[in-house]
């Protein structure tokens, strides 16, 4: 089994209080620092150049060295992931980063123009696709989630199955139709759409018998994350 990555933290023990009473008012603020807003905007605008997709940008953040992932604040992770994607996809160079500037050039064909921002954000990017393949699991079927390593299409690659939910008994609650498979898409191996299921895993299955009966966690899992239970 591959080593658990730092972003895959669901279910880890932690006694940190989530928000202290003093910081509660502060939580109404959308951007705590002006640079947070710039980091968000520059990430979205660079994404619009079309060199990578949302899955690839998530994977770029997941691939940050573990020490950086743990140390960086939220938007620092975004910036680092963005910077690495920009270099990997040859939009900027290491020399330009070191210099903090670049030769001036004419606008790129796909540069996001200010007048279409509202429309682009309002339209989003739906990920459901029509496929001929029939979904394998019926609603109500008992299934088991696979091991993380058995969901990967690329060694140490991207998956959306969290470690805490891997290898667990679950019940199919619903099927959302076929969605783009991040395990392929993050690595530029096409959209590879597969049926996406909503599954329920009981808290007892996840955390043991001390869990409250009836409590459960719901996740969305692609068909290739699941196997039938007889």
């Amino acid at each position, binding site marked *: 089994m591959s080593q658990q990555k730092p972003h*895959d*933290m*669901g*279910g*880890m023990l*932690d006694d940190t*209080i*989530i*928000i202290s009473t003093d910081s509660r008012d502060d*939580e109404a603020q959308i*951007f705590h620092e002006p*640079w947070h*807003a*710039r980091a*968000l*905007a*520059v990430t979205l*605008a660079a994404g619009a150049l079309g060199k990578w997709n949302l899955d690839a940008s*998530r994977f770029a953040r997941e*691939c940050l060295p573990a020490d950086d992932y743990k140390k960086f604040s*939220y938007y620092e992770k975004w*910036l*680092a992931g*963005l910077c*690495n994607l*920009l*270099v990997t996809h040859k*939009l*900027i160079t*290491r020399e330009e*980063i*070191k210099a*903090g*500037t670049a030769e*001036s050039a*004419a*606008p790129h064909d796909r*540069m996001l123009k*200010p007048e279409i*921002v509202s429309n682009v*954000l*309002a339209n*989003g*990017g*739906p990920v459901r696709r029509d496929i001929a393949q029939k979904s394998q699991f019926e609603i109500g079927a008992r299934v088991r989630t696979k091991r993380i390593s058995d969901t990967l299409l690329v060694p140490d690659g991207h998956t*959306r*199955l*969290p470690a*805490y939910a891997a290898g667990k008994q679950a019940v199919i609650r619903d099927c*959302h139709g076929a969605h783009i498979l*991040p395990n392929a898409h993050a690595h530029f191996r096409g959209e590879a759409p597969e049926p*996406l299921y909503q599954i329920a895993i009981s*808290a007892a299955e996840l955390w043991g018998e001390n869990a*409250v009966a009836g*409590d*459960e966690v*719901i996740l*969305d*899992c*692609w068909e290739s994350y699941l196997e039938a239970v007889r």
Partner: protein
Amino acid sequence: MPHEHDDHNAHSLLPSEPALRVRALETILTRKGLVSAETLDEIIDVYAHKIGPHIGAKIVARAWIDSDFKQALLTNAESILGEMKLAGRQGEHVQVVENTANIHNMVVCTLCSCYPWPLLGIPPSWYKSDAYRKRAVREPRAVLAEFGITPSQTQSVRVWDSTAEMRYLVLPMMPVAAAGCDEATLARWVTRDCMVGTGIPKAPQI
């Protein structure tokens, strides 16, 4: 340098101060014609001033007083929100989940920070914190207690981990004290947190 050609380390060449890191990237990208400063201003304006929890609150208030709308919202939020032009970036596929006397729902994204942007805007810091991402699935009742919520004896807790591009919005129960209010007033009872499942509707401040 050992990492000179490692794609996962180019970021280490950026300045150490985060604000300067953004400025450096922005400078390089604008000079190269890859982004425009006006575009960045426009994106920030959308998320700072236009999109936010007031949008989700209107949906909830309408569901509270219009049972047909509520049914449609619970069975096919995606088409309703699409018709309302509310199915934009990070909210293309939405499911609305209803709190009842038997179920208390709460939403998390343990792997990153997925959140229904077109309905609630940019997620708050606590939603993106390691503590929430770690604890929400494992000890949701302890987390809820920190937010001042104690599920009733009859309520199970259902935690929604947003692992795909489905986005979840909690439809809270309408407080008895809010009965009789008009839609606009009801919307003021609906806080951001109660649509994530970590709050309950609160009487608006007069």
